[in-house]
């Protein structure tokens, strides 16, 4: 009973907020032409058509997947070892750290113009965009994991005569595992953002093509349905990976 009451208390406020937002949107939409602000049911019915009866959004998502997966996998394959290396070796961190940090905080989207220049408008510039979007966050998260390996563990390993390769493989790497999971979650979120940006700036395809096509035809209901699709997709993937994170490392607070 107490658990149920607590659950209800936790669930209710967001529900109230969303209801208020939808109600406000509905009221606003009454006085507006449909191409400016369609009403919630209109958007919902377009959403249903685009995902269930027609399924165009899934086709578009499939087209977007290639750049997202290849760029994300590259960032993971390079970012995880580099991050762990940087976290366990001060020299490497001093040399590479400033660049990774600079890429992390600077507006990397400006690089898309350069990628178009270098690779044309095919798949490659989109892969490059996804890569620069998610590599820095993966590297920095793994760096933290390796760096925060408790000194006691490393010292115990040394006392038992572990070589530095053994220390690295048996204490630093295992300690980084949960951070790698976190890095994947953060990287995935950024990868989705990079994919959408690349599809709007670099080459018009996939979900980006849907967005700009609907906008050109003033089909605002479909445009909003696509935006909600992206919103739900991002939320769903992130919360799935969060679940996974908690399941894999129940002792750790989420970063």
């Amino acid at each position, binding site marked *: 009973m107490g658990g149920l009451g607590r659950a209800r208390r936790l669930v209710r406020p967001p529900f109230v907020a969303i209801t208020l937002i939808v109600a406000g949107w509905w009221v606003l939409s009454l006085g507006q032409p449909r191409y400016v*602000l369609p009403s919630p049911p209109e958007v919902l019915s377009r959403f249903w058509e685009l995902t269930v009866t027609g399924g165009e959004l899934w086709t578009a998502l499939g087209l977007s997947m290639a750049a997202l997966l290849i760029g994300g996998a590259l960032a993971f394959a390079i970012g995880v070892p580099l991050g762990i290396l940087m976290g366990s070796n001060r020299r490497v961190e*001093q040399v590479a750290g400033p660049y990774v940090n600079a890429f992390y905080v600077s507006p990397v989207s400006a690089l898309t113009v350069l990628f178009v220049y270098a690779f044309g408008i095919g798949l490659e510039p989109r892969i490059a965009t996804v890569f620069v979007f998610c590599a820095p966050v993966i590297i920095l998260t793994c760096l933290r994991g390796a760096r925060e390996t408790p000194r006691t563990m490393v010292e115990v390993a040394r006392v038992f005569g572990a070589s530095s390769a053994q220390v690295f493989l048996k204490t630093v790497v295992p300690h980084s595992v949960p951070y790698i999971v976190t890095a994947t979650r953060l990287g995935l979120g950024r990868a989705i953002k990079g994919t959408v940006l690349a599809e709007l700036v670099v080459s018009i395809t996939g979900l980006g093509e849907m967005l700009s096509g609907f906008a050109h035809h003033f089909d605002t209901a479909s445009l909003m349905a696509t935006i909600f699709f992206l919103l739900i997709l991002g939320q769903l993937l992130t919360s799935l990976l969060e679940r996974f994170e908690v399941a894999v490392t129940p002792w750790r607070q989420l970063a």
Partner: protein
Amino acid sequence: MKARLASLAVVIGVWWWLSLGASSLGLPGPVQVVDALGRLMSSGRLMSALSVTLGSFAAGGTLAIVIGVPLGIFMGVRRSVGLAIDPVLTALYVMPFSAVIPLFVLWFGIDEMVRLAFIFTFTVPQVAIVCYQGAKSTPTTLVEVAKTYLATERQIFWKVILPYEVPFIFTSLRLGVGLAIQAMVVAELLIQSVRGLGFLLQFASAAFDLATVLGVILFIMLLGAGAVAVMQRIETSVAPWREGISADGGGSNV
């Protein structure tokens, strides 16, 4: 420091070598890029483009701070409000920015207004969430001691919660500035403007002037990284004890 300077020298050296050897790529060397940037500056084109771009950045960012900070604190003080709004802000935070640009263009046109609205919409969640977490995490012992000494609600807010919140506000400012710059660049790239930095980039790119393209990109990225570094300095000097906590989460989240 020495290792850093050495690595910087190596990076520039490799770039130079590439620009000499692989002339088929047409990669301009560091000298040409700096030269192009210098010409843009002396002709005043860079500064006028920058002032256009920074105008919307300043307006949208300021609005996001003026609304986001009190909103976050209010959410932390009134728990039910916090619980209600938090998921909405998080959803906006996870959302790929660029996807809403077409919708925003329909609503706000292609003038300053749309940039302002865009930068505002994507900076507010970050600012409010950090301030919310700060206000929420005010230690209950502090509040209880104040209550024991018969402090009124207002006194608890001004003398306990708000002082505790100050470093969080500075963190939110740093992350907000980073995010606002990211949003600004995305807006510049996706909304055809006639005077901003994005136009400068697209113009140079259409003219196959790679030296200028590289120069402007480097300039934009250094500007972004520099602004965040300055905010980080301010933050550390205001609340040096939080250095370890606030070092991560640079705020690039486009």
